[in-house]
């Protein structure tokens, strides 16, 4: 079942069209990454599904129903920047979140603050927090009351490497528990490590979407090496079915049309030609490379 369905969403700011006829589904239990360069419409899209912006055309459904305040109460969200009352402490800000959303209670406020390592500073004013601490508090607010769906816009923004790793682990842990997480990011490495599904946007248009494997794999790549790399290159130069052969350092990369590469056959072929492989991997293309291909950057 789809947690979120988008149907032909378009949005313009004056003459600039931020989103163009966007349609896709977010499956339940997925970690769904919304990728795109700056200005591609990621935050506009998240703002529309959270009812902060109104779409010019199209509609969206949460759990098969139109978006509503009651629906939003069940979704933990972090949109763009951490938005809190600067004069209130962390705990009082979360009390406001709790009062509006009805998610969690006094105990769960301490629980989420502990989860993002802010428990010791819970009585400090928000205005005294560093950027990373503000981001942590925003994540704590999103986690309050264990909502089954999280919408996170650049969740690791402003965090140090330890913080990034902690949030990554937290998202993985929530995914294991069956939570659905919709995450916008331009940090491809982060998305590649966490997401099960992606949608890639470019100038407001959907370039592609699907499971990470489907999106990343448009061809098969076999990475291999042997003691004598030159000889290996020679014997594989006419390997049947290979579309391309590349050499980078001691490794050779054989490219095949999607689904055509059979590593066992390659290994067997090399052995018959009198060369023993010391390395053989069926590789996925890096998301970064795929992203650049798809977005034309």
């Amino acid at each position, binding site marked *: 079942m789809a947690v979120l369905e988008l149907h032909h969403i378009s949005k313009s700011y004056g003459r600039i069209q931020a989103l163009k006829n966007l349609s896709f589904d977010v499956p339940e239990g997925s970690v769904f990454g919304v990728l795109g360069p700056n200005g591609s419409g990621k935050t506009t899209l998240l703002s529309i599904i*959270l*009812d*902060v*912006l*109104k779409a010019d055309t199209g509609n969206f459904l949460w759990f098969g129903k139109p978006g509503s*305040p*009651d629906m*939003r*109460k069940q979704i933990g*969200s972090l*949109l*763009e*920047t951490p*938005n*809190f*009352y*600067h*004069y*209130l*402490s962390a705990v*009082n800000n979360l*009390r*406001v*979140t709790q*009062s*509006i*959303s*009805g998610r969690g209670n006094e105990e769960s406020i301490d629980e989420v603050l502990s989860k993002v390592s802010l428990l010791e500073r819970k009585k400090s004013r928000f205005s005294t927090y560093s950027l990373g601490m503000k981001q942590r508090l925003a994540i704590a*607010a999103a986690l309050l009351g264990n909502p089954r769906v999280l919408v996170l816009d650049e969740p690791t923004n402003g965090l140090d490497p330890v913080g990034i790793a902690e949030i990554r682990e937290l998202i993985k842990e929530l995914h294991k528990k069956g939570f659905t997480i919709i995450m916008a990011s331009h940090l491809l490495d982060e998305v590649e490590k966490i997401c099960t599904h992606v949608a890639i946007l470019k100038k407001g248009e959907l370039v592609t979407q699907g499971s990470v494997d489907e999106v990343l794999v448009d061809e098969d790549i076999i990475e291999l090496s042997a003691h004598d790399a030159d000889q290996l290159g020679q014997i594989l130069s006419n390997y049947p079915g290979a579309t391309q052969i590349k050499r980078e350092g001691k490794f050779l990369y054989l490219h095949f049309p999607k689904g055509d590469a059979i590593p066992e056959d390659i290994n067997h072929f090399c052995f018959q030609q009198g060369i023993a492989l010391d390395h053989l991997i069926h590789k996925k293309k890096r998301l970064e490379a795929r992203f650049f291909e798809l977005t034309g950057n």
Partner: protein
Amino acid sequence: MNVLRTEWLKIRNYPAFWWVMAMTALSYPGINYIFWNIYKEVTKKQSATGQIAKMLLGNPFAYPETFHTTAYFSSFFVFIPAIVVIMMITNEYTYKTHRQNIIDGWSRNQFLLSKFFDVVIITLMVTLLYLIISIVVGIVASGNSTVNMWSQSQYIFYFALQTFSQLSIAFLIGFLVRKSFIALSIFVFYFIIVENMVVGYSKVKLNDIGRFMPLEISDRLIPIPAFLGRLDEKAYKAGLDAINPHIYLTFLVIAVVWGLCYFFNQKRDL
């Protein structure tokens, strides 16, 4: 109740709110104290002038006139609570917490309702302050005489209505402009200069058309106190007669202000 509770959570620990309310709590009794002292200075003289002044002015701070007199002087300072009203709405835009309130599960109408409650709460606090001042001043100025003590208590309602109407206009400016400094400047400039100029000019040249200006409509709920009215009895009588129509006009202003807020709140992006 949820909306009220949430607003209380926001206000309770907001130092600027309490500072401005403290300023209000000082300025309202302050202005009344100043005029009361002037009155006492003028009337305590044993000379003939002093005695004539006493006869002419009566005792505007005693019951029941205290409700009218203190309402009139207190209303000079409505721009102080207006500061806090403007800050409370523009802060939401500055910190983008208006968006977060919606994201967390309020409807746009609930957000607007929460701000409506802010204006109501501040109006009630200011009215309570005025009421305490008028009762205390009345007790001190009346001595043992409490005849017809509550006969002018309708001014409590007029004061509350005027305050709510003028704070609602301040809110509208903050709501539309979104930037606290600009909104405050516009309100104070309009409150102190523009409307007074238009109203003053129209009295002389335009058949008093300025009485329909947004703030002036509710200003006329509380005409000049009786002792000042004795300087021009005819104008004073006309001022009293205008109160009833201006009650309806003030309700109309309030409806238009909040209607505009509702309209823009529905239409514009957050």
